[in-house]
């Protein structure tokens, strides 16, 4: 589903944020991406989502090269940044329809999916209000709904649990699993190691822009815990 091959990103000024990263996410997988602050997680996710340009390596989503066929790649992808800013002058329902229009989602399908996800996240009643009046958590839920209604083949999430209440976080985990059961894949970054350990089929750990360990969660963790593995790799233990 997602193939990142020898991807590197160097910022103006010469700082190498990511160095020769290679990882593959298979259909049906939830793939966790963890690392310390500034390790290169967000830079990688933004490049995968086609939001940020890069010079070295290739990124392919469902057979579409993000550089050569960005529109094709984005059509099967949904991306949520760590702090999704949504148009404050729009009402919630207008934003969902805007996204649905950009992704050519038929009217019947969008009505059903908005009803399903907005109902589950208890946001239906608020959809008529301007996004400017939403709390942080409500915006996060709206952004998640806008991602789920796209029925993406690859869902890319940057710190998706920040700002969500426990019930919404639980709900989201259920929907991620549901998405993967349908053959899609999820690639997300998180600092919540307990969640990553329980939720992810595979995990990659990045340090100073370089992949230091990756593989199936069970193999990676072994008899230890993900927290122990992570801290050991970070040299904190």
């Amino acid at each position: 589903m997602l193939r990142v091959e020898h991807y590197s990103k160097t910022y103006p000024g010469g700082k190498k944020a990511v160095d020769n990263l290679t990882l593959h996410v298979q259909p049906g997988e939830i793939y966790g991406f963890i690392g310390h602050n500034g390790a290169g997680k967000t830079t990688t996710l933004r490049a995968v989502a086609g939001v940020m340009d890069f010079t070295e390596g290739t990124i392919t989503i469902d057979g579409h090269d993000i550089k050569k066929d960005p529109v094709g790649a984005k059509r099967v992808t949904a991306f949520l940044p760590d702090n999704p800013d949504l148009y404050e002058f729009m009402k919630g329902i207008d934003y969902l329809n805007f996204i649905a229009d950009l992704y050519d989602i038929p009217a019947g399908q969008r009505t059903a999916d908005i009803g399903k996800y907005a109902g589950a996240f208890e946001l239906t009643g608020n959809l008529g209000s301007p996004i400017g009046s939403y709390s942080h958590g409500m915006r996060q839920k709206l952004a998640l709904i806008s991602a789920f209604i796209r029925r993406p083949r690859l869902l890319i999430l940057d710190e998706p649990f920040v700002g969500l209440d426990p019930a919404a976080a639980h709900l989201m985990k259920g929907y991620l699993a549901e998405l993967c059961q349908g053959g899609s894949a999820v690639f997300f970054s998180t600092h919540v190691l307990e969640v990553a350990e329980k939720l992810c089929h595979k995990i990659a750990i990045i340090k100073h822009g370089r992949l230091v360990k990756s593989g199936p969660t069970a193999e990676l963790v072994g008899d230890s815990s993900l927290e122990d593995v992570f801290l050991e790799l970070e040299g904190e233990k």
Partner: protein
Amino acid sequence: MKKFLTLLKVSIQSMLLSSTNSRGRGRKKAATGLGAVVVIAGLGLYLSGFYSYMLMQALAPSHMEILVFIFMGMAALVGGLLFTTFAVKGVVFGGKDNDLLLSMPVSSTLLMASRVTAIYLENLLFSAFVLLPAGVVCTILTQSGVGHSLLFWARLVIAALTLPLLDTALSVLLGALVAFLSARVSKGALGQNIVTGLFLVVVFYFSFHLNRMISGLAANAAGIKDSLNWAAPLLWMGEGILGDWGLLLAFAACCVIPFALVVFGLGRVYRQAVTAFAARSAQSNYKLSAQSASSQKKALLRKEAQRFFGTPMYFWNAGLGLIMLLAGGAASLVMREKLLAFVGMEGFPLLPMAAAVICFCLCTCPIAAPSVSLEGKYLWILREAPMPGSTLLWVKVGFQLLLTLPCTVIAGACISIALGFHLWQGATLLIATLLFAVGHALFGMLMGLTFPKLDAVNETVIIKQSLAATLAMFVPMAALAAAGGLYWLGSQMTGWAALALPLLLFALLTAVCAAVLSKHGPVMLQAL
């Protein structure tokens, strides 16, 4: 005091950086910011110097120089109000750093004072550009010698420093009203648009009233001065500049006291005001019904329309020219007789003048230019969307054209009918103005991409002060002036050349902008 200066420095930095290219570095960044200030200053000085000269020429012989300072003071006051009232909502009450600064160990009065002082500095710039050229003109043209002493300049500087205090006090009060209405009225943008519209009607009525007074100045200067009792503080300012220290002190008190009252009065409730103006709670009574689908381009156009009509600052700053086009077209039909009498003189170049008026109105509509910067923190939404970058750019250009082209056609048709143009003249007018409208939209888009300001602290700085919006307004005016020059050059040769040369210029500039935008636009967008 140290805290106040630190806060003021932050406000001023934010204001100054608003004019710069957010991607620029070092010298380029400083140069672009300086360029914007130079453009605004140059235009302000020119307009002020020109009108002061005209007035002083008419009034100096009858020793009524005082009226020049009164009228220029009024111009500075009204101009400053127009310039800063709608900035107050963003700069004083709606800063994105409100939470950060209000949580710090500084009094809310101090914070409010630092932000109001930033507004004062904007007004001071306006006041200086208007009053100081009047002083220069007075020094050169006066026949009573009032402008020839250092004390005159000292008094003028005192007036130029104190007048913006009154301006600031009024604009903060009006801005607070606008912010309050935005937060409290359920259709916030509509309510704010209505208030803004009424405000502009009052300003325009006042301006026309002033124009009538100025036109009768030379004949009855003393009578007009006597009739200005309603503007007593400005009368005192005029008397003060010309030598009456007592009245200058009274004028200064009229400016300082309201300013102090506003700063300390609103400062005491600043925290409450910021909270109240920002508090909008989401309603929870929406019932989901069947949704309808539309195309990508329609969705993007609808978004642009929602932002334009739903952001009063954007609508009134970039859309006023459209209203002027429609109102001007209608007025030309309604007041046809007066218009014909005014322009009926022999040899008056009606067709180019009509085209120039329409094109000037179009110049004041930089709708596409700030639209890239307005995406700001929302740009990720469009970047991750499955569409080529060129679609977004052409939709933004198309949105401006969707608004400007119909208004141009209506205004052109009305003016053609009112002035009794032949069919070929009407067609020429429409072709020239439509070409200009297309070129203006394309150029504005290029400016938006070249001088983006994606990290602005609020929308005000993008719409009112960004380099992209400034250049999108004034560079086309320069092109218009060049077209005027070509018309004159052509008229020295043959009749058709006079019309063909400006048309060729517009066509050439439009084609160049279209080619550059097509070739480099998507890359520039990707690089943001």
